[in-house]
């Protein structure tokens, strides 16, 4: 999608952070991140291992100590606990997936809608089964018995069940076979097509930039470059200096 169509409404992006700092085990892991995500965008955060990408998502989701400003659709998130942030419409698919291993696929999915109320709350199930038909075949199976790819699908499915407006994915391709990686990235594009904004952290640069509209390059807790995904992908210096390509 051309950048002009998805550019952030200049006045108010869906998510924005200003001077966001995050702390991990007493150390500063993020040094003042300014990031914007416009409604309907796919924004990728790329960078080497240990650059602070995951911490960035966890800071937005309220899972690590942080300071600075985080605004989501006009609401300040910096002082909210993680569960409230989720209820506002931000879902995180974390590293390691964090499924409920002994619960069934169906229970994992339905629990995604636990905090929602009203008759429509299980409606995202249709989308989940459409994206990942395999989950529908495994409904009664325990989450721990699924393959790595299926677990990733379930983690994304569970996140979708919270009816998010912003879906944050932390290394969704990690540990997956190449064919499954393609499936997951295809699903992410489809999720965006349904109106869900996506913020993705990925080691696989080429795949992430292929589906993203814009990207940020993070190094040692700072944003060192930002631009359209194409610009970042084509920037030889970026590839060499920051991404080890």
């Amino acid at each position, binding site marked *: 999608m051309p950048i002009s169509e998805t550019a952030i409404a200049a006045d108010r992006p869906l998510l924005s952070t200003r001077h966001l700092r995050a702390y991990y085990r007493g150390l500063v892991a993020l040094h003042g991140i300014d990031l914007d995500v416009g409604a309907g965008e796919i924004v990728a955060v790329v960078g080497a291992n240990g650059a602070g990408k995951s911490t960035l998502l966890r800071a937005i989701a309220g899972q690590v100590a942080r300071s600075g400003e985080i605004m989501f659709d006009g609401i300040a998130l910096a002082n909210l606990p993680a569960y409230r942030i989720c209820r506002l419409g931000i879902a995180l698919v974390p590293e390691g997936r964090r499924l409920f291993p002994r619960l069934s696929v169906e*229970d994992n999915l*339905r629990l995604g809608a636990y905090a929602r109320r009203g008759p429509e709350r299980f409606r995202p199930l249709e989308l989940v089964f459409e994206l990942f038909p395999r989950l529908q075949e495994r409904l009664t199976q325990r989450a721990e018995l699924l393959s790595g790819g299926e677990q990733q699908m379930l983690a994304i499915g569970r996140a979708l069940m919270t009816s998010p407006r912003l879906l944050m994915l932390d290394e969704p391709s990690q540990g997956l076979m190449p064919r499954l990686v393609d499936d997951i990235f295809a699903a992410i594009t489809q999720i965006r097509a349904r109106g869900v904004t996506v913020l993705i952290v990925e080691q696989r640069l080429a795949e992430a930039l292929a589906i993203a509209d814009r990207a940020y390059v993070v190094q040692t807790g700072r944003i060192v470059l930002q631009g359209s995904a194409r610009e970042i992908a084509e920037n030889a210096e970026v590839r060499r200096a920051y991404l080890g390509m």
Partner: protein
Amino acid sequence: MSPALILQVAIGGILMGLLYAVVAAGLTLIFGLMNVVNFAHGALLMAAMYATWLIHRSTGLDPLLQLPLVAALLFGTGVAIYRVLIARTLQIRVNGAMVQIFTTFGLSIFLVGLAQLVFGSDFQSINASFLGGRTLAFGAVVLPLPLVASGVVSLLVFLALFRLSRTEFGRALEATREDFEAVALIGVDRDRIFGIGWGIGAAAVGIAGVLLANFYYISPDVGTNFALIAYVAVALGGFGSILGALIAGLVIGLTEALTALVVDPSLKQIGIFLIYLAVLMFRPRGLFGKL
């Protein structure tokens, strides 16, 4: 020793075992949910028994009719204990488990001391209740009615707990048990679930307290022995398993009763602790444990 006597003792043991199981269920529920051993569990049983005795004395309300009232009272107490004490201990990063142990242990000492201060250390009992003094006879087998009623209510408590586990809240409870950090990812307030878990655990022991008050003496120390048995039941049944608590309670009740038949009744708990040692040696995770 007649077969009828053995049968009577065995049934009595099973009925008592159901009561042990309810006490253990409250303990194991809290432990399974958040890995906190509630050393004040016996003190909560004692508190429920005194509450029953007090309400009976001041209003004349029969203990059986007090069941919902005392259960609700203990539910509130459990939630309050979580909010005021336990939630704070969870914030502690260094040696948190020790702090939790001392917190609940300290709470127990406080509650027992408070009971001593308020009620004195004399034994109390509820003499005139609807069930008190009545028996139920099946041929040669004669059972005290309060014990039979206690067994029936205990079974109902387990039915309710099993039903609860199939509800959506029960699933959330289970999810919290599996990964209490990850539930925030689905918008679940961990503290609320923990608080309710403490409430349900305390309500279970509250129900046991009401049932026990029907036929057992009441004193500040009364909870100690029951809590000890409950710890054995939790270890035998498996930490965190409600079904395990039920089975273990039954095994313990039966063992205790049958031991009393063959050795001096004052040594009747020997059998229980032999079982406990065997569990530690051969199956430390218990019958249904997930550890």
